[in-house]
Every structure is written in C-alpha cells, then in structure tokens.
C-alpha cells in the first residue's frame, strides 16, 4: 500500500503540494490525469524517492522512498516520460540489472519483447525513441516490482504498439501490484485505468473508481430528464452533452476526456473529501453550483 499523508513540496519558491493526501491500494491500475504543470511527474518522483518531501509522510509498502533502500528500489520500477538508456546491448543491460530485481522473470521479459515485436536489441542508445520505450516497458514490467510508475507510457509508441502495451499491462496487473500511470493520452488507456485521480495545481480534484462514478453520475446527450442537476455541459453536434448527478438509464459510457474537462473546469463541483481507499471507493462531497 502507498500512503501519502500531508505531503508538502515546493520547487525553490514555487509551492506545488500542500498537505496532499492519497492512499493507493494493491490490485489497482491508477490513472493519474492532469494538465501540464499539475504536479503529476513530481508526484511520481516523490513516490520513488527521486525528490524529498519538505513535510509529511510518504510510505510505499511500509518503506520511506527518500531513504532509497535496496529492498525498496528493487520493488519499484519507473518508466519516465523522457529517459536515457546506456550505450550497452539489450542483453548486457538485462545481465547487469536483472539480478538486482529478485522477482525478475526472463520469460516474461522475452514474452513482452515478442509482444512488442522487438528482438533483444543491440546498442540501446541507438534505438528509436519508440523502440527504447518498448524495451524499457518490457524490462520494467518483467522486474516483478510491486510498484510500477509509468509516466506517459504511450508517448512515442506506434498505433499497434499501443494496443500491445494495453494487452501487456492488463496481463501484468495482479493483487499484489500497484500500477500508477500518469498520462495525457486518456484515449490510449481508456477502459484500463481505474480508479482515476485528477490532479490540478498540486491538489487532488477527483479520485474515484469508474464504478463509483457511474453509480453517482451520468453523461447524457440531448434532452435532460426533469430535475437533473447539471455539473458540466458542452455542445456536441448541435446538442448538449451533459454530465449530471445521479444514475440515469440510457446514459452514455464514460468518456475520460469529458470527465477531465468537467472536473478541471468546475473543480468545486467535484470536491473529494477522502482519498481513494482499498476498493478504490471514495467518500465525496459534491458542492452544487
């Protein structure tokens, strides 16, 4: 379990997180959404100990990230949005690093590479960005680390590779793992990421499972039932697309982009009072406009 309690963090004089709270439970693939500069990458870096919080407590499977203990680091893998691979062959990279991850599976690594239609490559630094990303994703997912952090994992992947990635990611999720995916490409990971956490200006605006969301909200296109409380609407094809409170029969399936726009446009209407808990359910207080 990952517990973030009252975390405060700022860059130089620019405050980002103040008393941030969140709990992530194993067995979930969390989608971390937010605008540029919302603090998504910073949150990932705090979670893996690359940055130190100025105040508060952060615990990942009972360990403190910024101590960077070997047992913690071998149970975590970060696939950053931008990264460098060393000037060594794929085989040597595996030979050097795999033994440092006790749960590494060579079979899974090879299976992921096959799925990505990538052979164990020669010099890693000479690969294209997409190939490097496929290699790193395949390696990271094969480490067996219980905490996987993926920052914009589909950036740079070609269209078939995005599908392959979704398939691999779905196969890698089990009850012991927490996968935290930060992304702008919500369409690439729709139907896969759940719960959803929306971050803006260092604050969590929204954190719910999709099941919870569907039980309390509906998206409707066209006429609205009497008494519907509209939280957000926009015009699509001459009709209004609306997010309304309460479950309504015949509602459209959830559109993450639409949800994101709704939450970031009217954050006050989606205030979450409690972080996502074990099953991903959230106590929430909706302040109606």
């Amino acid at each position, binding site marked *: 379990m990952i517990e973030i309690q009252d975390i405060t963090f700022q860059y130089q004089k620019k405050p980002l997180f103040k008393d941030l709270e969140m709990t992530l439970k194993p067995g979930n693939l969390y989608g971390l959404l937010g605008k540029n500069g919302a603090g998504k990458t910073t949150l990932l*870096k705090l979670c*893996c*100990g*690359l*940055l*130190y919080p100025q105040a508060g407590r952060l615990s990942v499977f009972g360990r403190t990230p910024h*101590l*960077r*203990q*070997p047992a913690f*680091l*071998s149970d*975590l893998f*970060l696939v*950053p949005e*931008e*990264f*460098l691979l*060393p*000037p*060594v062959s794929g085989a*040597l990279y595996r030979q*050097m*690093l795999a*033994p*440092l*991850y006790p749960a590494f599976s060579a079979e899974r690594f090879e299976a992921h590479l096959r799925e990505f239609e990538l052979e164990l490559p020669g010099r890693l630094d000479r690969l294209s960005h997409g190939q490097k990303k496929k290699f790193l994703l395949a390696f990271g997912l094969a480490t067996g680390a219980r905490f996987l952090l993926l920052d914009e994992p589909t950036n740079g992947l070609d269209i078939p590779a995005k599908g392959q990635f979704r398939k691999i990611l779905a196969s890698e999720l089990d009850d012991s793992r927490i996968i935290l995916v930060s992304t702008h490409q919500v369409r690439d990971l729709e139907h896969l990421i759940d719960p959803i956490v929306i971050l803006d200006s260092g604050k969590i605006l929204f954190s719910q499972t999709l099941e919870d969301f569907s039980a309390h909200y509906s998206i409707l296109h066209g006429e609205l039932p009497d008494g519907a409380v509209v939280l957000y609407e926009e015009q699509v094809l001459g009709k209004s697309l609306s997010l309304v409170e309460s479950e309504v029969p015949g509602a459209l399936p959830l559109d993450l982009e639409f949800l994101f726009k709704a939450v970031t446009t009217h954050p006050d209407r989606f205030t979450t009072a409690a972080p996502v808990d074990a099953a991903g359910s959230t106590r929430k207080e909706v302040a109606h406009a």
Partner: protein
Amino acid sequence: MRKPEISLNRLARLLWMDARFWARPLAIGGTALGLLVLVFSFIAAFSRSGDTFHSGAYAWIMGLGGLIFTSRAFLELRHPLSTQNYLLIPASFEEKFIARYLLTSVGYLGVSYLGYLLLQLLSEGINQLVLGRSNPLFFVNNLDHLQVMAVYLAFQSLFFAGAVYYRKYSLIKTWLSVMALFFVLTVFGYLVFRLFLHGYFDGMQANENVMMTFARMGITGDLTIAYYPFKIWLTWVGRIWFWGVMPVCALAFAYFRLRETEV
C-alpha cells in the same frame, strides 16, 4: 535515520557494471596514451636521455590521468535523466559510493600500473629491437613509490568530492577550489601569525623576544634545537591534516552530497 546497508554481492555487481561501462572509454584513452608513450620512449632511447622516462611517464599517467578519471566518476549526475537512472539502481548509497571510490582509487592505480608494466615492456622491446638499446624499466619496488601513490590517493579524495559536487567541468572547478582553499588557509595562517605572534618576529625572522621567551621557559642555546619540538608538532599537525582530516572530510562530503542528490 537508517542503517548503512552493504551487500558484497551488490557491491561486486556495481563494480562490474561500472568497470564494464568504463572499459571502452578507458581502452580508447589508454590506446592513445600508449601510442604517445611508445613514440616518446623511442625518442628518449634514441637520444639516450631516458633514464627516468618510465617513472616520469607513469607519474603523469597516475597523477593527471587518475584525477581526470576521478573527476568523471559521477558522469551520470551531469544530466537529470541519467541521474534518475543511477539513483534508482537497486543498491544502497553506501554500495554506490564504495563502488565508485574503489574504482577510481585503488582500482585505477592497479589497472594503470599493470597496463603500464605491459606497455613499457612492449616499448622497450621495440626500442631494443630497433635501436639495440632501451630505457630502464620502472617498477613499484620501494617505499618511496608507495608513498607517492598514497599522496595521490589523499589528493584524489578531493577530486572525488568535486566529481559529486560539480555537475560540469569538475576537474577544473575542483582544482580551482583546492587552490582557493589553500589560499584562504595561507591568508588565515598569516593573519594568525601577525595578530598573535607579531611580537616575536621582525618580518618573517624571529627576534630577541623569542630567545627571551625560550630562556624564561628554561630553553637556552642553539635556536634550531629550541625550535625542534615546535617543528615536530607542526609536522604532525600537517600529517594529520593531509592524511586524515582532508581525505576523510572530502569523502564524507562526497557521501552526504550523493545521499542528498535529487532529480
């Protein structure tokens, strides 16, 4: 607080990873240096002026080469992307620190000496074949040689700290910092000397007050003998500073700086 964690297995793996990573640049640099040594050794043998050629050449390779290598010990820290790769390698700070220190200190000394042994054998073999004469070979076979190596290791610790602290141009910046440090210490020493002991000196020369003070302390006769305990004391202070305080402080600084590194 956390306890230091050191696993010999992980340490050996880190050493192997570092050695594997450095093998190519060191081989390229070593080959270039080797060619220079072959040429200059040939010239020295030809001009019959190479009595101390190999000891001098190895001193340069050990000293300057070692400091350049040490200054590049933490190349990863120059770029945030490679820094995050390095920091996330599943090993403790202590293991990462020790691996780099061993590689750049005794590791470099051992490899450079063995490499130079082979190189001088090759160069003098060529000289003997072509010119019918050769330069004397150099072996580390006495205490003076070992002491020179120890002096190098003491200085190297400063450049190791500089490699962690300075993200770019660490060799030059460390060198300038060392110079600045010595300058500050000299000025400090001079000020102490002038402020507290000025009554005992005319310029830099001891005056009669010194002799009178010694006389009051019951020390009379030859001033050289009178100064002797002070000289011994000063020498020990210098030794403790050079062999103990300076390297320990430099290494401690490097360790804590590495621990505090963020991306």
